[in-house]
């Protein structure tokens, strides 16, 4: 299978007056098209930075990155990717629907590709039918994050980059959104790169989990999640799930 995202020997350094931080050192990874890769690691391991390198928000100091065979900048310009931030990053003066429509209004006015779901359909997909005309301050944290997922899905991106999108939500909302994200992934066939520091979330969501170690951020382990495609939350109580989780805890421990 062809790789959706491929990083080879990516190094990112941030030079400041006080010190130079190596956020990533020689990190390599690959996700196949239609895959779901969780990036797991402690804070400061550079997992968000790696996502930003793929999105062309951060330039790597060294290494090669390709997104569907293109350079990240070209992939971004071609709207190959959608990004979901930790903070929903909705524009507070726009309604839910207008927020989802934003990608059509910037970066050169563009039409929705033929057959692609409309903003209304996407809001329905994330379970927000009837909330189209609500403003962000009228929505709960979970609902705001759903809007931002709908916005990222507009135009049918082939790659979805998610930076701890559920990190600030309560556990109950987070569990529900985890289930729904699996469903959205299966329905849309989008490749997803998902950053998290929750081992459970990483295993429940991902087909593969890439563990990064901190200081500097580097590859620690790559684990394939051998669980059925159709998952609900009860899978977290199965022995298979528990085995993968404890295996990941080991590799997280070894990273230190």
């Amino acid at each position: 299978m062809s790789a959706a995202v491929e990083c080879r020997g990516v190094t990112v350094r941030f030079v400041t007056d006080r010190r130079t931080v190596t956020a990533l050192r020689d990190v390599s990874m690959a996700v196949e098209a239609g895959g779901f890769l969780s990036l797991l690691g402690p804070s400061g391991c550079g997992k968000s930075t790696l996502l930003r390198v793929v999105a062309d928000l951060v330039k790597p100091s060294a290494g090669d990155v390709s997104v569907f065979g293109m350079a990240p900048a070209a992939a971004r310009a071609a709207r190959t990717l959608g990004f979901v931030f930790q903070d929903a990053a909705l524009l507070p003066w726009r309604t839910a629907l207008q927020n989802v429509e934003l990608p059509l209004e910037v970066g050169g006015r563009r039409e929705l590709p033929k057959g692609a779901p409309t903003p209304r359909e996407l809001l329905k997909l994330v379970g927000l039918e009837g909330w189209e005309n609500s403003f962000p301050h009228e929505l709960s944290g979970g609902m705001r994050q759903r809007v931002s997922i709908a916005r990222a899905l507009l135009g049918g991106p082939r790659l979805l980059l998610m930076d701890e999108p559920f990190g600030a939500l309560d556990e109950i909302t987070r569990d529900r959104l985890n289930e729904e994200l699996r469903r959205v992934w299966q329905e849309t066939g989008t490749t997803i790169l998902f950053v998290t520091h929750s081992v459970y979330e990483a295993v429940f969501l991902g087909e593969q989990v890439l563990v990064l170690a901190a200081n500097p951020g580097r590859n620690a382990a790559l684990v394939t999640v051998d669980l059925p495609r159709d998952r609900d939350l009860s899978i977290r109580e199965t022995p298979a799930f528990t085995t993968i989780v404890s295996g990941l805890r080991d590799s997280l421990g070894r990273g230190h």
Partner: protein
Amino acid sequence: MSITADTLMDDPGLKEAEAAHERARRRLAWRRRLLPVAGILSMLLLWWCLVYILEVPPFVAPSPVAVATTLVAKWPILMANLVPTAIEALVGFALGNIVAIIIATVFVHRKTVEEAFFPVVVLINTIPVVAKAPILVLLLGNGMEPKIAIAALICFFPTLVNMVRGLESVNPQAMELMRVLSASEREIFFKLRLRNSLPYLFSALKIAASTAVIGAIVGEWIGSTTGIGALIIQSMYNFDSAMLYATVIVGSAFSVAFFGVIIAVERLVVRWQPANPV
């Protein structure tokens, strides 16, 4: 699973609770209206008592009754003098704020210009208004122009500072979103920065609404024959304290009305809740 209007209707105590809330709300609304009125009336009464008991002569301080009589008797003169002051304040307000918004836009997009000229702006702002006035009168003559210039200068600084802050304090993740969407600087400005700056702009405009009137009045103190400022100086020289107070009341009533208009416009324009309140 979801709560609908119907399930809420099943709650037997709902109607009663809503009615009680409505009563409390109405009581609070009346409280908010009546208490300030009571405060102002008691101060007027205190003023009147002091003037009456201490037998303050009319050329030192008038009684509130004398001021009210003057307000009615001299209404045409007061209004005739309010018009030039109002024009100067409004034109100065418009001019000062528009220039501030334009310069803030330039500053945000061209850091070099900001670094070079922001200190100049701060220096000009440190000159007191009463010191700027004679300079501008010499430069611009004795008509409305120097007063407009003073009103404009006085509005300019708070708006510039707030506007730069409003344009720059954009949610960093919203900024990254715009980059992911390959938005141009122009799109970022109109779709993100400008909207983001509106709450900041309005808090500056509210300050500017009252300071613009102050600027126009101070301008009129220096060699002017019409306007609220000129009337204040004339009344003072004539020891006509009732007229002086009446003029001051007209001037501040105009300020308050101007301020009220800005608040009304703000309510129309800024309908969302800012993410981080200004």
